[in-house]
């Protein structure tokens, strides 16, 4: 197959979790976005018609001008796995069979037809399908800065694979080993997410954040009863403890008996037991991840590792891989979950189907993962005038960052909306809520008054790249906030005897209040932090803002959390951002070159914040 003069490839991931689209033109990423940002439904699984429209508009093309469209998995192979599972678990699988198959009969088995309908028959080419884990692998390897690398993908499940190992060099990658469904590290983690009372597919972050509060006292039990792990990282799971193959829940009664009771009710009080369960499954996950990377290193002898798949968002595990694993460098796809599959399949078409030579960017080719929509000052001003908002327009960026740095130093919480939206689950300085990490009240304020989320959840720091080693034990850069690193001892604060008692309190809100370092808002209870390193090349204005904040305060760190409230996708448009600003206790909002102060908004008191909050189901 020969590419035309300019080759436009659209990748799609859809129908399961976090649908997305990505557009490559001549091998370069032009646009990528998740559907949830447009529909405002978190992890929206529907066919990403809005994300596709955005990607095409970014390139100024219509579907007829696309050369290839790729889908991130193989529907018939997945269907084969589903039916095989139902056969293996008959007759208990009957209810699940009757629930799941109608969607297949009506939609998923007609995927090409569905896509024709979505594109109004304007696309004249053929559709391409890649294996789910190959899409993950491609999303990790091809945009990475490595000529060659070992590959590890870990997630819940694709078609049959749940974990794969492989190797990439130049424009080719090959997956050589796999673990097959139903044995899945991702699903083991999800089972504990479910059991500890959080929502599967979104609560995994919470389990990871909860883990440092607990002791891994169930780790041996998990390794003894639920999962058998070999020295090479491969594993087998005892499915009698789980119910996801045949039922409508993750765990079985046998699981509940083993851990002494039913799953925690969502939103009920979190006890030490849940914290210990979280610590235990986290410890098991890290152990498997470390064994897998040692094994893939042994197989490939590479110095570099790339990773993708939902489990690769486990930043604590990633941090340990970097510190304790055999690889010199690692690179993780920022959209490591299913959304990144859209990018992966597009790359596979460019390199594997079209055999194009690979151009390697020494930083990486992900462009800071800032691949979504951007709104210029003209559009923003039109919106603000329409919304009757009060704002200051700064023609000069220097004045803007100076003003915002002052606000931050004054412990104000600022919504920061600038440039292209992030692709992937992390806010990286384009759609972020930021604050001063030195404040002892910032974490509680942001959690309870702005994000409206659980008080135990830690916030992440962003730090100027050149100053990262001054604050964190981090050897690599971490531009995508995918690595957890310890805060350096010189910045830690020893707790008083009274605080040591508080740190044992069953009420997590009290534990969170203990000041642990010179940057308490971003220091977790175990002195760890999920670090984003910020550099001028990738982050532009955001870097200059941080630099100015450092000049004023001596601190090169900011709190950086996603611009949304609990259950809401990260904001996409100025409208989304303004609504979030009015609906929360945020003090200021930056929209491009415009600065809005809450106290100056005449329409703020009339805004129905409760209706806004309740429009998003808690995740």
């Amino acid at each position, binding site marked *: 197959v020969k590419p035309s003069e300019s080759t436009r490839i659209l990748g799609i991931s859809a129908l399961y*979790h976090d649908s997305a689209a990505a557009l490559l033109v001549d091998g370069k990423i032009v646009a990528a976005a998740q559907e949830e940002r447009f529909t405002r439904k978190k992890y929206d*699984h*529907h066919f990403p*018609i809005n994300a596709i429209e955005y990607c095409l508009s970014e390139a100024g093309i219509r579907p007829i001008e696309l050369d290839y469209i790729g889908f991130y998995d*193989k*529907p*018939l*192979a997945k*269907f*084969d796995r589903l039916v*095989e599972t139902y*056969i*293996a678990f*008959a*007759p208990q699988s*009957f209810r699940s*069979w*009757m629930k*799941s198959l109608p*969607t297949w*009969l009506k*939609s998923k*088995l007609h995927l090409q*037809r569905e896509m024709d*309908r*979505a594109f*109004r*028959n304007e696309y004249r080419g053929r*559709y*391409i*399908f*890649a*294996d789910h884990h190959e899409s993950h692998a491609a999303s990790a390897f091809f945009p990475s800065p490595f000529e060659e690398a070992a590959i590890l993908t870990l997630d819940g499940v694709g*078609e*049959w*694979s749940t974990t*794969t190992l492989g190797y990439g060099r130049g424009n080719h990658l090959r*997956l*050589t*080993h*796999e*673990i*097959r469904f*139903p044995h899945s590290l991702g699903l083991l983690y*999800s089972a504990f997410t*479910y059991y500890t009372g959080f*929502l599967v597919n979104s609560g995994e972050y919470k389990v990871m954040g909860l883990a440092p509060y607990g002791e891994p006292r169930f780790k041996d039990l998990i390794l003894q009863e639920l999962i058998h792990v*070999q020295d*090479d990282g*491969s594993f*087998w799971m*005892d499915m009698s403890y789980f119910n996801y*193959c045949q039922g*409508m*829940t*993750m765990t079985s009664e046998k699981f509940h008996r083993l851990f002494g009771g039913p799953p925690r009710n969502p939103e009920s009080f979190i006890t030490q037991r849940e914290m210990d369960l979280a610590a235990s499954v986290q410890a098991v996950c890290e152990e498997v991840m470390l064994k897998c990377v040692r094994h893939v290193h042994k197989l490939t002898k590479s110095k570099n590792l790339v990773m993708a798949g939902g489990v690769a968002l486990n930043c604590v595990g990633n941090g340990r891989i970097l510190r304790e694993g055999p690889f010199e460098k690692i690179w993780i796809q920022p959209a490591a979950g299913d959304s990144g599959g859209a990018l992966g399949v597009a790359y*596979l*078409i460019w390199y594997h*189907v079209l*055999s194009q030579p690979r151009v390697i960017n020494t930083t990486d080719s992900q462009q800071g993962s800032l691949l979504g929509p951007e709104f210029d000052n003209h559009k923003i001003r039109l919106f603000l005038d329409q919304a009757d908002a009060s704002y200051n327009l700064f023609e000069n960026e220097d004045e803007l960052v100076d003003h915002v740095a002052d606000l931050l130093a004054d412990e104000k919480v600022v919504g920061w909306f600038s440039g292209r939206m992030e692709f992937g689950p992390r806010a990286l300085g384009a759609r972020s809520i930021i604050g001063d990490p030195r404040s002892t009240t910032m974490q509680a304020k942001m959690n309870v008054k702005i994000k409206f989320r659980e008080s135990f959840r830690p916030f992440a720091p962003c730090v100027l790249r050149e100053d990262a080693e001054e604050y964190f034990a981090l050897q690599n850069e971490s531009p995508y906030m995918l690595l957890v690193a310890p805060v350096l001892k010189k910045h830690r604060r020893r707790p008083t005897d009274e605080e040591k008692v508080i740190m044992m309190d069953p009420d997590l809100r009290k534990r969170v209040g203990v000041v642990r370092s010179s940057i308490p808002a971003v220091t977790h209870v175990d002195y760890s932090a999920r670090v984003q390193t910020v550099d001028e090349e990738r982050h532009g204005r955001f870097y200059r803002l941080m630099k100015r904040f450092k000049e004023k305060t001596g601190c090169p760190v900011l709190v950086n959390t996603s611009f949304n409230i609990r259950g809401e996708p990260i904001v996409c448009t100025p409208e989304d951002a303004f609504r979030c600003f009015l609906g929360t206790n945020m003090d200021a909002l930056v929209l491009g070159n415009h600065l809005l102060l809450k106290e100056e908004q005449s329409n703020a008191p009339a805004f129905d914040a409760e209706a806004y909050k309740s429009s998003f189901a808690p995740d």
Partner: protein
Amino acid sequence: MDLLAQVLLTIVYLLVLPVRLVRAVLGHDKLRLRRPLNAASYWVVRDKEPNSQSYFSEASLAEGCPGGLAVGQFFSDRGAARWFTPMLRLIARLYALPRERAADKYDVSADRGASIPDEVYTLW
């Protein structure tokens, strides 16, 4: 889901039951539900690599191809789904929508029911 589909799905499932029984008696275990006791590793080697043609197929070369049943495979450990997936795909033909969409706004032709939790839906 309409009554016809429910009836057809129930009939196919009734066919699944004896197959399940026979496979259990013969000790077939494609999902490795029984722990392989003497295995030193649980890694499965992927011996087939996708090629430029296989990318055009919705079936997977690397992860097993559900293309129908070859003679002698029914009672083998290669899985019984290959016998049922063609039946189900045949039933699915009843529900194939026209390629043209009537409405200005695209909406998917089928969606999951509200009672299906996310954790299991993502496996389906």
